[in-house]
């Protein structure tokens, strides 16, 4: 990849996501991953694989700090951060809804920034500090955002809720006194099918107000 060097730069035009990921495994662009100190290992070839991506897949051990705890997990280059935290680490509070960066349900905070974990590769998260919904509260006490969400009934089915909470945390970390317009813009990357938006706004405004905002 000409853009090279950063493994989170978009794939070059004409390169499919699958091809891109496959390439990473074979070393075409894998140097990007290696240059960041990732361990690449050959798959244990037991049986001859049919002609699929799997036969080219390598695995890498990724170390992340999630909610203050260190995790080392072996991942395939094609695995998303969402998949790894949900299915491999069992942190299922983060939800999978669209899996293509359209709905925000999978939002986590990585190195101080809200990201869609469905469009973040797990290997990109090597060395990262991540907060998921499970890490929002501490010491058995609800975070003020969580308290406000419950008090104002800011959800119905609750499936979008962890994503909204993490997006709101990121927003208020950066703009503690956000007003309604700023809240709407800040949360515009998240979707709720039950239509609990008015209550999400009430909860968000309350937390923003409590932090000395408008």
């Amino acid at each position, binding site marked *: 990849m000409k853009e090279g060097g950063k493994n989170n730069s978009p794939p070059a035009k004409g390169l499919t996501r699958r091809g891109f990921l496959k390439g990473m495994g074979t070393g075409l662009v894998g140097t990007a991953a290696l240059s960041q100190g990732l361990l690449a290992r050959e798959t244990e070839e037991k*049986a001859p694989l*049919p002609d699929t991506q799997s036969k080219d897949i390598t695995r890498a051990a990724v170390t992340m700090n999630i909610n203050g705890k260190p995790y080392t997990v072996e991942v395939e280059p094609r695995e998303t951060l969402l998949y790894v935290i949900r299915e491999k680490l069992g942190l299922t509070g983060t*939800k999978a809804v669209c899996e293509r960066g*359209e709905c925000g349900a999978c939002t986590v905070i990585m190195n101080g920034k809200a990201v869609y974990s469905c469009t973040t590769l797990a290997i990109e998260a090597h060395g990262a500090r991540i907060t998921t919904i499970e890490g929002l509260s501490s010491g058995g006490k609800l975070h003020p955002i969580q308290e406000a969400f*419950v008090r104002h009934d800011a959800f*119905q*089915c609750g499936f979008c809720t962890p994503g909204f909470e993490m997006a709101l945390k990121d927003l208020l970390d950066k703009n503690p006194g956000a007003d309604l317009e700023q809240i709407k813009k800040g949360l*515009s990357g998240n979707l709720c099918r039950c239509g609990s938006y008015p209550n999400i706004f009430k909860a968000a405004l309350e937390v923003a107000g409590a932090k000395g905002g408008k």
Partner: protein
Amino acid sequence: MAKWKPFDKMKYIGREIPRTDGPEKVKGTAKYTQDINLPEMLYGKILRSPHAHAYIRHIDISPAEKHPGVKAVLVLDKYTVRYSGEEIAAVAAISPDIAEEALGLIKVDFELLPFVVTEEEAMKPEAPRIHEQGNVSWNGGGNKEKVEKLLAESAYMVEDTLRTQVQVHNTLETHSVVCQWENDKLKAWISTQGVHGARDDFAKLFELGQDKLEVICEYMGGGFGSKFPIGVEGMVAGRLARMTGKPVKVILTRKEEYLAAGNRPSSIQKIKIGCDSKGKLTAFWIEDYGTGGINADAWFPSPYVYKVPREAIYRRHGDVRINAGEARPQRAPGHPQGQFGMEIIIDELAEKAGMDPLEFRMLNDPSETRQRQYKIGAQKIGWYERRNKVPGSQPGPVKRGIGVGSGTWGGGGDNSTKVQIDIYPDGKVKVATGTQDLGTGIRTLVHQVCAEALGIPMEYIATDIGRSTLPFSTASGGSMTTGSVVPAVKNAGDKALEQMFAVVAPVLKVEAGDLVCEEGVIFSSKDRSRSIKWKEAAALLGSKVISVTEGWVEGLSSSGVAGCQFIEVEVDTETGRIKPVKVVAVHDFGLAVNMLTSRNQIYGGVIMGLDWALLEDRTMDSNTGTMVNPNMENYKIAGTLDIPEIEVVIDNMPERGVIGLGEPPVIPPAGALANAVYNAIGVRMRSIPMTPDRVLEALAKKGGA
């Protein structure tokens, strides 16, 4: 007949009570079906037809079977596929990625067949026949000449053709299931609107005794009518799990959800309507059709809400089959379609008759409840002061307008619902019933009503729902959950309390019949000094438990609701963008059990209705026979920036008992919005979604903008 206490005497009912499962949801600890991860669990994926219509000549699964990560391949027994997205085969593998790869290794030899994916193409005489029963099934008719005569004799008559599109449920949690066999027993976690119905489905499918099954749905990410049957995904998960001897999880992708997990049918409605010189409706004529995909009907109620003499109605309805995924019930099935056509034609007729559209409605609406609600809503939106007397007359490119629309729904309760209440010697209480909380809040209602019936704080009570091994409760559909479950909880609570009083009375030396319990204290209504705290009373049970299972009783619920909404919009005639500014939603649902969750459900109905009117559209491509927008980027639903101010008016009628609320608020928005747009710009929008391009096109036709 059972009765509720006077509304102002109730402590837990009629209040704003935060959801009792709220903390689990906000912490991310609530376990939805998708969150179930079991040891050695495999991932199932379904191979679907990329073609709209084809014969399957041959399937070669051997390359997929050779993949070391694949544990089972299942071929579904079929020779024809009739829509893009129809299921063909399935695999179970050690990861979702490998399962998906394996699908790509299955070689299917298709013989392509001609297809149709729009109603108009399907109805052409030369259209390929895509179903044994033909492409269109007509019903109704008769009375046509008589009604046409009545129309001709009417003082005023209008006719128009209105159109609504296919809407996809789009639940955030896609259809999901995890199956695990333990010898001859099946345990299934499934995102379902009916755990008992799912138990039935699995039992029939696998010829199992119903006692060999446990179906679990503790939390679910929305249903909206799409999650009644266990579906192909349920069957596939069960079979793959049996083949492999391992638990199998099948989660539909977002794309699969759009293609094959249900939708609201379309409607194309040609309507003629007449009234007399005073504005009373005289006749209604409708020829309509719509598609529910390959084999579901597209019926909707029409005429809607407003009274037309029965003998003055002519209707002919067609169900059109196209090569697309089948419709399923969707939040107030049929009603939004019927409402959209009716509200627009009523508005047009009122204008022709020279009457205010609201006055015209009040003249023709037989519902006393709605008559009252119209007045409430009109006052709140400023109907008489702020609505344009001449539509489109505001100066400047950005114009505002106000419109109104109505709705009606049945609801009611199912008398087979049962609830078990256990009172333990430590004073703790468990209330259990096999209902399921789609996000509607029924778990919290069960909790509140149990506290109300027993007269104890909610903290003493734990709820247990969402499992088929709990007492029978009906599926959650038709806004019937509250009407079914709440009376049964109250009845079981009353009976459990009677047993508690029988234990306490001899100790307090009073008549059991004189005892009451309030705020956790049992006392004699004749002598308040004779009292005992709930926990001390419970301790009298020794090691025994009071356990009562009771069912639904008459007198605590009813059916039939009204409701209307007033909407103010802003239309930019230069960009064609419609922006809802304010919605006043007036809804009755009998005794409002929880003001907080009810208001939220009304918000949700309004927003989903607005979505349908402005954004959502399943777009089929006639060249390829596939849906072109099966994702959340191109199939739009509202985000934070699209939400207007919504003022909810809960028209509380406690004397009626409880009635469900899920469906009613989704009905009025589309018609009300279209009428508001007309009031703003003076140009009729006849099709939804009312996207900017359609608005500009309509304006251009009028010669405006």
